[in-house]
């Protein structure tokens, strides 16, 4: 194991994956199967219920974790992003045709945030020549900001198109199904590795655990872990409301064996928040039947991979608690940026996290501060206000468990945004959008009914029906 090398991807797009014959190799077997599965799932969604644009939006959200180069066209646009762009154009035409927008919902504030960040990025790049050194960087910056507008327009469209609870349930179910397929691909990759072939997307573990992990359908093992973990509320929803326990078990298993420090700590956060918000529903005698196998699994995994988990805890403590400078998470990196660019480098997402040879920033809060400078205060305050508003309306969601899971997901997203640079990943916004949508979907069907304006304390006896 000591002589183990990482194996990344020798192709940059689907065309190269097919044209280079990688799909025939055993090392690319998992991606070939993943492509077939993705095609089948997408065909199922596209032939399913609702208007076409609604189905495109479903693919946009559900396919987020499929960000491997094999799932992209030349230029780097992924399949789910293509679906998103088409949906955004479609909604744009519908808006011209009279589709309405409600400024109090989630979509318009995303638009406003995008406009503020666009103005800031434009003006700081005028001041600092090095921020727009060439046309390529200028176009890249434009594309990065455009992604915010694509998300905004899709959310505006969702607010108009997703009218019933069934619409949102179909979306959540699709996200879970796509993710389960991704998890199966992970285990296929493990099997290929165990058979003696190193599959494409086999990674080291940043030096902390000593065993390899895999990218599966994502570009990298960390991406896979992080993009998957944000789906926790939907897996929990499927387990609680649809009795789909096996997907939840697979979700836990893959998170525990992927050895990603971020996803492991996020999982702990999700569990803690869910327990706090829904303890009335979770801590029950009937839950013991699940607690026993869960504890047994954790004990078995801990005894088998005790050293690896120890390494992960070391990494979390080093970077997260002590603020170690490694991995671009130290304060000195932020200091270097703010010294060179006191007004920030402009919104750059996760793609342009560094300027020139200044080190890359991986800590979410620091990256945000280095990009937005003083604007971080109104932007983040606006984001918190948006979350607060949706949390306030969430008691209108008929089901307490669903509401609790979505609110837990929203609260965790705030923490995730501070830790990692995943700000405009669609699935990160999904709990907020769906909670808001479900609250309003309930309203539409019960306009005549008076809706209680009393804030509900989660988990209190009054909320248990």
């Amino acid at each position, binding site marked *: 194991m000591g002589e183990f090398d990482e194996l990344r991807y020798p192709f940059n797009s689907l065309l190269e994956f097919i044209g280079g014959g990688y799909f025939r190799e055993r090392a690319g077997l998992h991606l070939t199967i993943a492509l077939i599965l993705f095609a089948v799932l997408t065909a199922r969604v596209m032939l399913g219920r609702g208007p076409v644009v609604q189905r495109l939006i479903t693919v946009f959200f559900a396919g987020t974790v499929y960000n491997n180069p094999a799932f992209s066209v030349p230029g780097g646009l992924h399949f789910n992003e293509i679906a998103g762009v088409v949906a955004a154009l479609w909604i744009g035409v519908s808006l011209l045709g009279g589709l309405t927008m409600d*400024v109090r919902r989630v979509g318009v504030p995303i638009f406003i945030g995008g406009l503020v960040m666009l103005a800031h990025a434009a003006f700081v790049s*005028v001041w600092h*020549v090095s921020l727009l050194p060439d046309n390529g960087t200028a176009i890249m910056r434009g594309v990065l900001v455009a992604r915010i507008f694509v998300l905004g327009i899709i959310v505006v469209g969702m607010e108009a198109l997703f009218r019933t609870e069934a619409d949102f349930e179909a979306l959540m179910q699709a996200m879970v199904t796509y993710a389960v397929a991704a998890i199966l691909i992970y285990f296929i990759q493990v099997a290929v590795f165990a058979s003696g072939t190193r599959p494409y997307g086999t990674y080291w573990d940043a030096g902390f655990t000593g065993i390899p992990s895999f990218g599966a359908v994502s570009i990298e093992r960390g991406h896979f872990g992080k993009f998957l973990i944000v789906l926790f509320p939907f897996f929990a929803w499927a387990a609680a409301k649809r009795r789909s326990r096996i997907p939840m078990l697979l979700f836990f298993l893959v998170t525990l064996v992927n050895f990603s420090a971020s996803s492991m700590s996020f999982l702990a956060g999700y569990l803690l928040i869910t327990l706090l918000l829904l303890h009335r529903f979770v801590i029950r005698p009937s839950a013991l039947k699940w607690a026993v196998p869960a504890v047994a699994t954790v004990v078995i995994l801990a005894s088998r991979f005790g050293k690896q988990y120890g390494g992960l805890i070391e990494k979390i403590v080093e970077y997260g608690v002590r603020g170690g400078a490694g991995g671009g998470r130290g304060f000195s990196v932020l200091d270097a940026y703010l010294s060179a660019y006191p007004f920030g480098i402009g919104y750059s997402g996760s793609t342009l996290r560094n300027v020139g040879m200044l080190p890359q920033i991986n800590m979410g809060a620091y990256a945000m501060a280095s990009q937005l400078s003083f604007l971080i205060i109104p932007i983040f305050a606006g984001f918190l206000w948006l979350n607060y508003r949706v949390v306030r309306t969430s008691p209108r969601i008929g089901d307490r468990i669903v509401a609790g899971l979505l609110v837990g997901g929203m609260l965790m997203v705030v923490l995730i945004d501070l830790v990692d640079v995943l700000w405009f990943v669609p699935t990160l916004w999904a709990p907020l959008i769906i909670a808001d949508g479900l609250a309003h979907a309930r309203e539409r069907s019960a306009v005549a009914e008076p809706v209680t304006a009393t804030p509900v304390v989660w988990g209190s006896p009054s909320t248990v029906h």
Partner: protein
Amino acid sequence: MQADVADATDGRSPHVVTLLGLANDLLRRPWVLAALVLGSAIGSALVRVMQPRTYTAIASFVPETALPIGGGISLAALAVLGGAEPTVGASTTSSRATSLDAAPSPLPSVPPVKPLDAAYYWEVLHSRALLLTVAGSRFTIQTPTGERVGTAADLYDLPAGPAAARIEDAARKLDRELEVDYDVKTNVLTVGIRTFDPTFARAVTERVLAEVMATNRRVDDDRAQAKVGFLTRAVADARGDLLAAQDELARFLASNRAYVGTSAVALEFRRRDTDVLEKRGHYAELALQLERAKLDRSRATQIISIIQRPETPPRPDSRGLVRATIAGAVGGLAVALLFLLTSGHLARLRGAGSDELRALESEWRAGRRRRAASRARRSTALPVAASEEG
């Protein structure tokens, strides 16, 4: 809230808008839109034009793969031979070695720094020691008024003050003006320094390059020195061991002058003889390593190859005027959209008789009245106080 919900359902809420409605908001005051877009574009262009012209001197080099000192046996390997415990990092990092790392050695070896790594050069080029040395050295530049000599602080026209503080400030300025680029494919590192004067840019780049080479040499010399020191001690120990083994053999032969070939004494003789041979071989090998290390130490190691020496830039850097103008126009458009759409929405709310907006506006007006009243009180109180004092 209930009214809003009902309004939203039948489309009469001022919060529910259409794209055409928003377009009307924009077109209601087109001159604001045009003024903000054009003003920002022209302003951005002016900012770029008014920024002082800069000149960038560029140098590029390839960090070469250095041969490990001592004919392939590294310091760590020798330390292992000498009985030292290998470091923890040695075994973990060796498997993660990049193509930029040194040639593989027979035993695990991880030098404390990686002089062939691009990140190492970034650290060296932005290191405080290097920048202070460069900023503190003297430069001669040609100006329209004649030759100018001084430190970087003098040439940057930094305000007078303690010399150390001025050098520190100049080093910081230099740090901001220094750009390092690394091409992964070609392994070429490019250093660019952007300053106000072409001659100064070239001179600073040359000095930086010389300092990088000096740093490399120092690091290399320190390492060679450490190896020589270690090998000297190891050779002395091996020589001592060899002499001791030879003495023991000699004493053994002196006390056992006659023996039979298969006796225990004969076996003991062979063991001691082999021991002497092994120690001699070990000693000879270490002595050879020591001589090689001494040779390496005396050789000035050049571990970078200059591809492009810095030259005086013949013309100033591009201002990127078109890009800046477009960026300014885009920024202005974003600001105009925010302004016009917000004011349009406020007008809609006012038209719909929004209670929240009315409360907000009355609070705002009350605040303004309070501030005006307190200003008026202050302005009347001041003459009274002055007259009382008078």
